[in-house]
């Protein structure tokens, strides 16, 4: 395994992680900016990158901004906003061709850093604030994005289930924020939010490609030098396990052909725990794969669904189950799924399930090193959780587990919420 091959350093208040390799035809660059997920800042933090992508001091018009990316051989540029544990993370990504494949006069890595550095630290300002029309349009963009979640019923049901389950925690918040907050955001207030975000966020910058830590450090100093005044503060986990007292059922009606059945579970195991490997095995045997209990019993044996699977979020200590069914089969599907949860708690886990799931997890962890952005993501999880564990170490832990350890993990998973999205009554 080489995916612990990142070399770590820091400059200009940014933590730097570089993996020199010739395996790819591009330079993959990721900049993570994390702040605690809080109701008072979630919406303005989400709006910041949308406004930053509209224009900079050198490329004030959005068409100029995008033309610049095309000149760099269509450098990939984008950003994501998501929740990890109780943090709100903004991730900027660039994916730029290695110069050796094209006849470029400029160093494409250097130009990409110049671009990203400018996006982050030299936004277009008018009268000491963001351009008003950009703020107004991007506010609408976020509003429409929030409103359109309902269009994708699979995603909507998954997000509603989490929202219901975590209704008393910051985690109920959507990473894009709250619609009600949008109207109160002005160019001035957003510029203030931007400055405190930039100075307060934990910044991690990753590069994977044919370069060196020295070259990257120089580029960071040159192009992010004015980013901030202080060092990045490491992430802290404030995870406290939630005890489930009773299973809560929420039903919602919309105009749909297919019912969406989602379940949320709580566990005390998180990414930094030694039993994390056992929780991965639990999820894999329950519903991570096509050989898992959910797929085999809900789909293959009963033909109730096309998809039936589970996921485990080790940053938040929750498990989720999702399936699409005929509404009339709700009771039957819930019974079959709960039976699978009980089977795991009872330790009814075969040798074959163990060996197949181990092989699948091993494959997943090995494949990470064939993708620059997957390697970056894996290392960032280590920064976020404070747990220094390589993929190889995790693989070895998974390999050493037996049914007893998976049963012990199962004992920590408690069903918390059943959410059902179903059609309107005729």
């Amino acid at each position, binding site marked *: 395994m080489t995916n612990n091959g990142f070399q770590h350093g820091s400059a200009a208040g940014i933590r730097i992680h570089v993996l020199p*390799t010739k*395996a*790819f*035809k*591009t330079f993959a660059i990721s900049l993570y900016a994390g702040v605690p997920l809080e109701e008072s800042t979630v919406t303005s933090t989400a709006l910041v990158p949308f406004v930053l992508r509209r224009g900079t001091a050198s490329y004030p*018009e*959005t*068409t100029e901004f*995008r*033309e610049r*990316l*095309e*000149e760099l*051989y*269509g*450098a*990939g540029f984008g950003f994501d906003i998501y929740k990890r544990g109780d943090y709100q993370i903004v991730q900027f990504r660039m*994916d730029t*061709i290695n110069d050796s*494949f*094209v006849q470029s006069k400029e160093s494409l890595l250097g130009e990409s850093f110049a671009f990203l550095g400018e996006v982050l630290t030299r936004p277009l300002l008018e009268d000491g604030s963001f351009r008003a*029309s950009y703020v107004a*349009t991007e506010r*609408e963009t976020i509003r*429409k*994005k929030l*409103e*359109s979640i*309902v*269009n994708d*019923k*699979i995603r909507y049901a998954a997000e509603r289930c989490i929202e219901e389950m975590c209704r008393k925690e910051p985690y109920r918040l959507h990473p894009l924020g709250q619609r009600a907050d949008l109207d109160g955001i002005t160019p001035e207030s957003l510029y203030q939010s931007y400055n405190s975000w930039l100075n307060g966020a934990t910044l991690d910058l990753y590069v994977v490609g044919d370069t060196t830590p020295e070259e990257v450090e120089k580029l960071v100093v040159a192009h992010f030098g004015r980013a901030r005044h202080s060092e990045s503060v490491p992430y802290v986990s404030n995870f406290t396990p939630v005890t489930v007292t009773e299973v809560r059922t929420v039903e919602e009606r*919309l*105009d*749909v*052909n*297919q019912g969406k059945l989602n379940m949320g579970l709580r566990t005390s195991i998180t990414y930094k725990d030694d039993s994390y490997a056992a929780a991965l095995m639990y999820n894999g045997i329950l519903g991570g*794969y*096509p050989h898992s209990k959910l*797929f*085999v019993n809900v*789909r*293959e044996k009963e*033909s*109730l*669904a*096309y998809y039936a699977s589970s996921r485990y979020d080790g940053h938040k200590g929750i498990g989720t189950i999702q399936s*699409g*069914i*005929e509404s009339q089969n709700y009771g039957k599907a819930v019974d079959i799924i709960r039976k699978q949860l009980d089977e795991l708690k009872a330790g009814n886990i075969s040798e074959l399930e163990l060996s*197949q799931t181990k*092989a*699948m997890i*091993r*494959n*997943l962890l*090995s*494949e990470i090193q*064939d*993708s620059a952005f997957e390697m970056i993501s894996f290392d960032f999880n280590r920064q976020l959780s404070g747990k220094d564990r390589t993929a190889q170490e995790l693989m070895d832990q998974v390999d050493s587990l037996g049914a007893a350890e998976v049963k012990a993990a199962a004992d920590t998973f408690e069903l918390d919420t059943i959410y059902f999205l179903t059609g309107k009554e005729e």
Partner: protein
Amino acid sequence: MEKLHYERLQETLYHEVMDNGLQVYVLPKPAFLKTYATFATQYGSVDNHFKVAGGEETTVPDGIAHFLEHKMFEEPEGDIFATFASNGASANAFTSFDQTVYLFSATENIEQNLSTLVDFVQRPYFTDENVEKEKGIIGQEINMYADNPDWRVYFGLIEAMYATHPVHIDIAGTIESISTITKETLYTCYNSFYHPSNMLLFIVGGVDPEKVFELIRNNQKGKSYEKQGEITRIFDPEPEEVASKHVESRLAVSIPKMMFGFKEKVDGLTGEAAVRRDLTTKLMLDLLFGSSTALYQKLYDEELISDSFGHEFNSSPQYAFSAIGGDTKDPGLLLERIKEEVGLILEKGFAAKDFERARKKKIGGFLRMLNSPESIAHEFTRYQFRGGDLFEVLPLYESITLDEVNARLHDHVDWEQLAVSLVVSP
């Protein structure tokens, strides 16, 4: 074994045709841990009326190619997913208009997994019982897509354009059409389209080509195939004009979805001519509607389009059409504005500097694609089935001229050939 070296791309491809006609390609990626393999047949949802030399003309139920794909995973001893899982491979399959692809990705037991892939696809096992059972599962898959507005608006557009060509039929068919599928019809389709001479195996990853060919040679020697005559696909004549200028469907959406596009006249293009036409058209569409264009920015600032606005071009020797659109609050106004603005561009044509930049972006996008074993395998197969060569795309892009793109613009944008599809809230 034939060796093809592409110096500029730093890739070497190995090729061999088996005695039974199976095409095998191996692309070694020594730096990669994983191996990705696809086994594809040139058979998709449009092939519902055909004749094999020496056989009878046959018409089969809509959705049968996709149904067959599902049923291939079942073996007398159970589900083939379990076999893959035991060897740490993640397996899957998909069916498109003109191909069905079976695949796996794995980091260990590569030879074993390759044999499993080739063997399960070459060993059909259909029973009355397992065919009936699948109807429930696929029924739920059909319902899932029926609730998906992106899918509905896209297929609505193709239905609006095509009256007789089966490209307008949903890939999964309908609950009614799949109800008529039997094990006998499945065997008919299998025997017609899964002959090795109609198939292509592509392997990319950390493998030794000679060892792979040796394995496949021995595997195929152990199976007896009679020589198969030519497959004739029969298509009823398709009118030149669109079937319907405007279609609408109703779903619970927060904001309407609109797709529009132009139906081209059938030109029967294959091979490099088809590839060149496709690349030129995609460049042209990017120059018209790409996110760096003045048109895109105007419409975005007028809040008529969002980040969801995109475009694609789809073609075969019997059909060719563009599909353009996304979410919009006012479909009527958006279409009016597009007609206005595109009208102005039609008068002037594209500027040389915009053309050069768009071409750079496409070249960069192509090189970035080569980082992904999945994309290489899928795209290579798609090109081969059209008689083209993925690895010759770079010089093709470089040889396309501005005049060609301008000519394509006038050829493609024919308002008489426009169709519009909407999804609106009930």
